[in-house]
């Protein structure tokens, strides 16, 4: 799915949650290759001219999420939780840590031990970063969210940028398991983890497969 279309959809869901028409909502999708700049991103951390990126079919977008530069591609699972923190806990850092917690628990179900880094938001393994997080909050309702690297093939494109303005290595679930990963299976587990961690009896989710 195009980043732009996904963003539009997020905002539609956001409106519904804000008006109280919907409860906690989760959008699951993959993106066509795209580089996004969060609010603290510096252009110099995109290492290739935009024209060259365009030729490669990679779009560039500035977004309102927190964080620096990142890359998204079809080999990642993206989750956008649109939750009203006024009904959960009005605590931004708590929410970020819970998102990390979800990814760590998710990876554990695949036999992988991941951890948090107290100084760097995201989820980390020995070989590098596997999940990036960047959110935005308006009226205590969250949008944007997290990405998890699943497929090996996509990792090369991280060389086009300095993720979050740092020289960090990225890894993926496939690289760790050394076998192919079924995105649908990961999605199912991820929904379970969201429900568990946030204690939801139900979460409305939209699974976009295009």
């Amino acid at each position: 799915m195009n980043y732009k279309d996904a963003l539009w959809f997020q905002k539609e869901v956001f409106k519904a949650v804000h008006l109280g028409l919907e409860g906690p909502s989760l959008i699951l999708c993959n993106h066509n290759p795209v580089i996004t700049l969060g609010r603290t991103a510096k252009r110099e951390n995109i290492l290739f001219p935009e024209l060259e990126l365009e030729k490669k079919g990679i779009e560039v977008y500035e977004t309102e999420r927190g964080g620096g530069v990142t890359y998204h591609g079809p080999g990642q699972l993206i989750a956008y939780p649109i939750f009203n923190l006024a009904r959960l806990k009005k605590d931004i850092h708590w929410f970020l840590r819970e998102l990390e917690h979800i990814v760590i628990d998710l990876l554990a179900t695949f036999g992988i031990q991941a951890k948090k880094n107290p100084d760097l938001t995201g989820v980390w393994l020995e070989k590098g970063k596997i999940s990036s997080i960047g959110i935005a909050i308006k009226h205590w309702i969250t949008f944007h969210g997290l990405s998890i690297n699943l497929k090996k093939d996509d990792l090369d494109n991280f060389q086009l940028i300095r993720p979050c303005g740092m020289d960090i290595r990225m890894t993926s679930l496939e690289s760790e398991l050394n076998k192919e990963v079924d995105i649908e299976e990961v999605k199912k587990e991820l929904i379970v983890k969201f429900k568990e961690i946030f204690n939801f009896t139900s979460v409305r989710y939209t699974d976009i497969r295009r």
Partner: protein
Amino acid sequence: MTNVVLPPLGENIEKATVSFWFFKAGDKVNEKDDLVEMTTDKATFNIPSPCTGILQEVLMTEGQVAHVGETLGIIEEEPK
């Protein structure tokens, strides 16, 4: 005069950075308009205008770090 104050953002969050103002001093603002965006860690947080009026003064500008409870700007309320 109504102060636009950095609200509590959670336990152990003492401060946040101004990313930008949606309005400039002298602009008319409506209650609940997006007024100023703050960043902390990997999150942006929007502060809505507490009332309708004129944004009189911006005290904390882009890139400045504000502490919870600190005044970011002042709005001259429109008489009702």
